[in-house]
């Protein structure tokens, strides 16, 4: 993946980066506050509910142990009275049963939570809805739905089942106890019934927002408070956990279960609270945080957008100025930025100014070069035609015996040949020197011994490159203006490299500058020299050129300054 800071738009990165960080921050704060507060609530609730259930368990155990104990006493009394029943007369039997009823009645009357007692025995059947104690046939208990619970034990708690009463069918929870005789045979079963609402009142928690279930030691559900019913799966689900921890809590979905199993009793109480109800307050706070967070996100984003706009505006202006740039038309950049943007703008504007200057220079240069080229072309008007024509004139002169003219013509022809032989702009200095030698030889024919000239050049310098036909105009100038009307003429060409450039000095002993100027030397010879000057400047810039100074011993001295250009450079240039 590529770095988004390098690829994506700045305002885009700016906005979404900001948004992402703020959202993340708000989310983390909200999540931490919710999870920590609900964790706190859960642990608090669990703690207090466990305590409460523990207390409830104690209270319950006291009540239920009371029932169990009194049933035990009742079964002993039953056995004693029953023995009399078996031994006595018919009347005794009636009395015994009446006494058993009366004893059991008293248990019911004395134990407010007891509703009634059912006795399954061989005693004469007597089941009246108006009575507290009912006598049922011994065999009938095997048909009761709860019989399996008591079948294998001496006593057992029987979960909710229905009995008939004078208030209709009502649900009860019962404690069943077998009655044994001295021979350890069991011959009767006493079932002590407790009305379910009464029983539930024992396990009801204050406030009653949650439901409580009561399990016996085998994990059998005895009863539960009326709210929503516990499912068997639910109870099975935590059975293993209850086995491990006598008291604890567990949360599944919306349900928060807390249980407490008392060590000294067989009862387990499970309380279920709705997680939603429990954490309602924490959720409210979280919601408030979330709202504040969202508001903060919006505010910050709004701020972000504003700030980003302010930052992006100068960049946008700069970009626009850059993309719309043309030398003719320039967008003005604001000048009230004093910071980095201000400096950026200034820098850009300076750059632009310099570019414009450069443009101007280039145009001037281009113009100059064009003119120079046109002039050079004008100079070279069909030299071959001139050269051939000269050759023919030379032959005529030879035929006519005019050896002097012939010599001049041949020198002139050579001059042309040299001028035409190389089309490149730069030629080796040796060639340039050969060219002026030709011109000097040409003049020598006319001047004979009165002309004296000398060319001084290092062997090294001969290989350097110079612009073509750059020295001839000075020499020609010397003959046309400087030696005009003189008897003899002396000319020196000295070539030497100096200070990183090539200096060519052409000195004559002619009339000197001032005299020549008065005779409008510049007007005649001016054309050739101006051409030279312009060519040098076009080729090498204004720092090169030539100057005309008076000679030390009279005459004129022309000093041409050229860059040192080695052979290879010239090749590259070609």
């Amino acid at each position, binding site marked *: 993946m590529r770095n988004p800071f390098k690829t994506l738009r700045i305002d885009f990165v700016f906005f979404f980066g900001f948004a992402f960080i703020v959202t993340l921050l708000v989310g983390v704060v909200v999540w931490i506050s919710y999870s920590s507060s609900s964790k706190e609530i859960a642990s608090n609730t669990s703690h207090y509910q466990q305590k409460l259930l523990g207390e409830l368990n104690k209270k319950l155990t006291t009540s239920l142990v009371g029932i169990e104990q009194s049933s035990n006493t009742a079964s002993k009394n039953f056995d004693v009275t029953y023995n009399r029943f078996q031994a006595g*007369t*018919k*009347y*005794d039997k*009636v*009395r015994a*049963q*009446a006494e058993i009823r*009366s004893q059991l*009645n*008293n248990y*019911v*009357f*004395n134990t*407010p939570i007891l509703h009634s007692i059912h006795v399954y025995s061989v005693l*004469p*059947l*007597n*089941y*009246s*809805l*108006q*009575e*507290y104690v009912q006598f049922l046939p011994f065999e009938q208990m095997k048909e009761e739905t709860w019989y399996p619970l008591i079948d294998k034990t001496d006593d057992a708690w029987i979960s909710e089942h229905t009995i008939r009463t*004078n*208030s209709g069918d009502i649900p009860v929870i019962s404690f069943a106890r077998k009655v044994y005789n001295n021979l350890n045979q069991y011959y009767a079963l006493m079932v002590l019934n407790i009305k379910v609402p009464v029983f539930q009142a024992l396990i009801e928690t204050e406030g009653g927002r949650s439901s409580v279930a009561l399990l016996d030691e085998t994990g059998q559900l005895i009863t539960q408070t009326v709210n929503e019913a516990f499912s068997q799966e639910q109870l099975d689900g935590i059975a293993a956990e209850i086995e491990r921890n006598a008291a604890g809590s567990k949360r599944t979905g919306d349900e928060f279960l807390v249980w407490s199993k008392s060590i000294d009793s067989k009862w387990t109480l499970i309380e279920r609270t709705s997680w939603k109800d429990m954490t309602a307050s924490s959720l409210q706070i979280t919601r408030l945080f979330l709202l504040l967070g969202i508001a903060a996100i919006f505010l910050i984003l709004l701020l972000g957008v504003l700030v980003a706009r302010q930052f992006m505006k100068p960049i946008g202006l700069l970009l626009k100025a850059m993309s719309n740039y043309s030398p003719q038309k320039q967008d003005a950049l604001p000048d009230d930025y004093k910071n980095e943007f201000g400096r950026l703008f200034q820098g850009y504007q300076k750059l632009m100014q310099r570019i414009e200057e450069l443009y101007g220079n280039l145009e001037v240069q281009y113009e100059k070069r064009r003119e120079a080229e046109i002039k050079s072309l004008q100079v070279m008007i069909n030299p071959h035609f001139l050269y051939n024509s000269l050759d023919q004139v030379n032959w005529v002169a030879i035929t006519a015996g005019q050896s002097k003219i012939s010599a001049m013509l041949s020198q002139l022809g050579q001059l042309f040949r040299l001028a035409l032989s190389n089309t490149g702009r730069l030629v080796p200095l040796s060639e340039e020197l050969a060219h002026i030698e030709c011109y000097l030889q040409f003049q020598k024919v006319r001047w004979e011994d009165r002309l004296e000239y000398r060319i001084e050049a290092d062997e090294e310098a001969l290989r350097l490159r110079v612009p073509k036909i750059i020295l001839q105009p000075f020499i020609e100038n010397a003959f046309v203006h400087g030696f005009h009307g003189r008897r003899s003429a002396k000319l020196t060409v000295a070539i030497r490299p100096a200070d990183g450039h090539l200096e060519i000095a052409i000195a004559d002993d002619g009339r000197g500058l001032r005299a020549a100027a008065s005779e409008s030397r510049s007007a005649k010879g001016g054309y050739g020299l101006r051409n030279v000057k312009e060519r040098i400047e076009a080729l090498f810039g204004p720092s090169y050129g030539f100057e005309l100074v008076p000679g030390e011993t009279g005459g004129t001295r022309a000093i041409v300054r050229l860059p040192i250009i080695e052979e290879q450079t010239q090749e590259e240039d070609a």
Partner: protein
Amino acid sequence: MARKWSIAVASLLVLATVTACGNSNNSKDASSASPGASPSASTSASPSASGGAGEPVKLTIAWWGSQARHDATQKALEQYTALHPNVTFESTFSGWDGYFDKLAVQYSAGSAPDIIQMDAAYVNDYVSRGLLADIGSINTADVDPSLMESGKVNGVLYAQPLGVAAIGMVYDKTVVDKLGLKAPDFNWTWDDYYAFGQEAKAKLGNDKYVYADQSADLVDYTAYQYSMGKGYIYDAEGNLAIDKATWIEYQTKQKELRDAGILTPPDLTTTDKELDPQLDNVVNGNAIVRHLFSNQVGAIDALKPGTYEYASLPKGSEAGGWLKPSMFWSVNAQSKHQEEAKAFIDWFINDLEAGKTLGLTRGTPVSGEIVAALSPEYSEGDKKGVEFMNQVAPDAQKFVNDPVGYGNFKNDYKLIVEKIQFGSSTPEQAYEELLKKAGEYAAAAAAAKK
């Protein structure tokens, strides 16, 4: 005093019946009494008014009775709660057996109900122990003053009479008709009784019986002694006054009937439970005649509608039957909600809607106005009950609340007579035992008086 009001009750009943027949004079009397009554009604209503606006009150209430009474009473309680939403009830109800045993246990545990259905046999005992509250503020303007006496001890009202009932007999008319017997009536004598027994037994066969054996019930002997002209079983001083010869004669005769299979055998007798669908020997068809109070007519008729007809107790030289306040409401002296309890009792006896709901389940209502309002709407069963009482009323014997200390005497009486029923004792031996037991009661009662 007691004598006076029993006559007054009879006259009230006649009066009520006459009213029902449309005599306007008496209703004028009733309305002329009402202006005097209204101020007291408003004063007695004040606790209920203050209670109505007050904090929630849960009244505990207990009564005995048949299923019909349970149902009607519970409905009435719901009505009261609808009128007074702050008052709710926790009710306990059962048959007669064990009712006072339970109450005794509850009193000793301090958990007795706020409102208690009270029986004439126990009023004096409970008052002497200070267990009942003075409920004199209840508006009783529509109740015959002499009837009110039955709920007073030393002039203070402790038990509000709820209805009047007569004792008589019920017989299974369908069986009597099928066997082609002459039905018992409101004028039959002990001779008719014996003759009917023998005739019926002859036609019924071995495993069916004529009379449910109620010889162990003191009520039956009380009626016998009255009918033989020997007076009430307690004398004016509150001492037991069972005539030895009469008693032995009665029990001997009963034994003969038992031996002849005219009375139910002891094993059936001991399992007999009055008005229980399965255990009542007349209802379940083991026998065809038993004694019954007129306020139970509705209940027994509900079990097998149209099956039963009614008769008086047999006559000797005098009539045997009497009228009695069928039962009372008393307020527990330990109750924290006595004012609310009294307001409820006031409503219970005076409110027309309550009267309609309850009907005759506690005997003929004590308020003349309610009787007047109800009588046009009497059901068949109700009409029979009223007629039953009207038949007994003219020559009814006086009724007296059991004297102090004798509340439980009838239970011991029952045990002693049961011995005769099972042949473990002779009437003579039983009488000796009875005397001994009576001596114990008399000594205890004398000790209590000091």
